[in-house]
């Protein structure tokens, strides 16, 4: 196990390095100056030179890259133009918000997906199975922003069941802690439900097909032969094994999860990483763009690492294979 962990840690460090490098060069090698920072026609040439010097844009790219990498490792991620504060501080404020949204959505996604997938597999080939497959195919194909728009328009605007303004009600910081928590959950409910439900279609398919494959194996026949009930065989013997690949799927699907949360954050004005990134791009805040992109890359690498380690812990076959 230790060898496996060390190997995975080593390759994660390499991946992290690759992600940072690729992010930097993709943004820097684009034609024109970063984010058309100097598009403003009223800006004087002197001011432009001053800005170039400030951001080190007058030096060779290789030098800029090394400086940037060293600074990132030190925790100095640059100074945001639009927030007028260090980008790292802003990111550390926003990261927990994204993490909260993503965690809630992933929980909803998997609980719903596993339940429906289990139901479909138990009733494979029947009416219920077909309905669940149709619904999951639809959820799989409906873009997240369509679902979000509909939810906002109906549940937040017309019937006003859920709020849509950011994470907290105005003046909520004066309230007692319990009221604050309830207020936060109330704000969290709709965005996390939208993200979770939009993504659960894939989990349903995954669980259903995985279960059907596991059910063909010999040890399931043995379990039946021992006289166990169908429910016990499915939920205890089969489901556990078919859930392990789900952990790996989670790691692989992380970039898609982040893009979904970005769209949800923008539509629900949820002050997370994705929303910050979109604002930064719109305001041509180039250090902020670089920082959000790099941080989201780091999140994917770390998430992948955690998923791999979890999978190895759950399934001895994985750690012995390497």
């Amino acid at each position: 196990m230790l060898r496996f962990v060390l190997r995975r840690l080593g390759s994660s460090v390499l991946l992290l390095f690759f992600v940072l490098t690729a992010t930097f060069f993709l943004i820097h090698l684009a034609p024109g100056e970063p984010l058309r920072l100097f598009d403003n026609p009223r800006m004087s040439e002197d001011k432009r030179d001053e800005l170039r010097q400030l951001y080190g844009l007058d030096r060779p790219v290789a030098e800029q890259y090394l400086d940037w990498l060293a600074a990132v490792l030190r925790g100095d991620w640059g100074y945001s133009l639009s927030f007028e504060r260090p980008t790292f501080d802003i990111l550390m404020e926003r990261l927990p918000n994204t993490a909260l949204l993503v965690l809630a959505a992933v929980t909803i996604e998997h609980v719903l997906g596993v339940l429906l997938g289990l139901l479909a597999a138990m009733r494979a080939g029947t009416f219920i199975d077909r309905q669940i497959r149709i619904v999951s195919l639809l959820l799989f194909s409906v873009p997240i922003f369509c679902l979000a728009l509909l939810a906002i328009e109906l549940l937040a605007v017309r019937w006003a069941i859920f709020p849509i303004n950011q994470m907290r009600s105005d003046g909520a910081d004066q309230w007692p802690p319990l009221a604050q928590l309830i207020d936060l959950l109330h704000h969290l409910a709709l965005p996390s439900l939208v993200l979770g439900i939009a993504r659960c279609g894939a989990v349903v398919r995954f669980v259903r097909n995985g279960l059907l494959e596991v059910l063909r194996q010999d040890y399931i026949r043995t379990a039946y032969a021992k006289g166990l009930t169908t429910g016990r065989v499915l939920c205890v013997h089969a489901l556990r094994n078919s859930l392990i690949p789900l952990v790996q799927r989670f790691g692989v699907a992380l970039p898609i999860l982040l893009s979904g949360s970005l769209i949800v954050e923008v539509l629900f004005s949820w002050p997370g990483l994705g929303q910050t990134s979109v604002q930064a791009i719109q305001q041509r805040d180039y250090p902020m763009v670089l920082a959000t992109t790099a941080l989201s890359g780091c999140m994917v690498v770390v998430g992948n690492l955690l998923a791999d380690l979890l999978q190895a812990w759950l399934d001895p076959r994985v750690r012995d294979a390497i």
Partner: protein
Amino acid sequence: MPSDPLTRVSPLTRVGLLLLALLMAVSLAAPWIAPYDPLEQIDAAAGKHQPPLTVMAAVQLEHGRWRLADRVERGPDGVIIERLGQRQSLAASEVLNLDEDGVRDRRIFLLGTDKFGRDVLSRLLHASRVSLMIGILSVAMAIAIGVAVGALAALGGSLLDGLLMRLVDGILTLPWIFLLMTLTALFAVDVWMLIVFLGMTAWPPICRLVRAELLSLRERDFVLAARGLGLGEVRIFFRHMLPHALTPLVVAATLRIGTLILIEASLSFLGFGVQSPQPSWGNMIADGQGVLLTAWWVAAFPSALLVFVVVAVNLVGDGLRDRLDPTLQQMTRE
């Protein structure tokens, strides 16, 4: 490989394929069959958010200006136009398209209009053209890169294999939505650039698939036999190995088209993909944001088409896989 996979697929898959082909033909023909110019805003104030099946008279004025009206009649010295119950008369000298009963031109908005009074049907047809083209061409590009890199990795020795596969791992970890947004904001992005960017992010899964297929094919007897016959490696690759890897490739590519259409729609929805005023499904849906209940037709038609296409593509992909891969088929039938 079956002689003709399409004759053996399930009816549902065939229907999906037929509808997709129909939609593709219609959207290819968009410039010729769209009733109006998708960018045309002849009278934004009067034409704004008209519901489907609205017919309006179009009065041509001087200097290329137009007025839209609910009804137009001939008056004593020109025309009387009626709009929302208000009547106004215009002198005959001002109106350029007069005829006996009123004016010659009219606008039939079959699917309604958007907030600038543009015809939703015309925009939808042009948007389908753009969105489908981006989906298909970026997948074609992903296949080209994926097959080339996958073949290099599988057949180019273990060192190259290791390097290329690490590259693939790296690209799969890139937070592509952040990068795509940034890149499209950096470049003055057009549709072709978007296709290149999407293709560049979409090839790693295809590359992995091709590599895995080729690695197992490489050890098979018929490849050994071909080598024994003295055939060149290039010929063995193209004539003997690639055709065997084609089946999973077709399935993966089909499913990938759906994903890429969704990605393009997300980017355009956020304002980073196809740029307004050029229509795409994503930015048309964004136009309907906030008026979902009052002017539902603005977002509903592009959403419906988008969902339909992705569902059809997924059905076709699943159907092909069930047909072409007997082990999976057995699994889903049980």
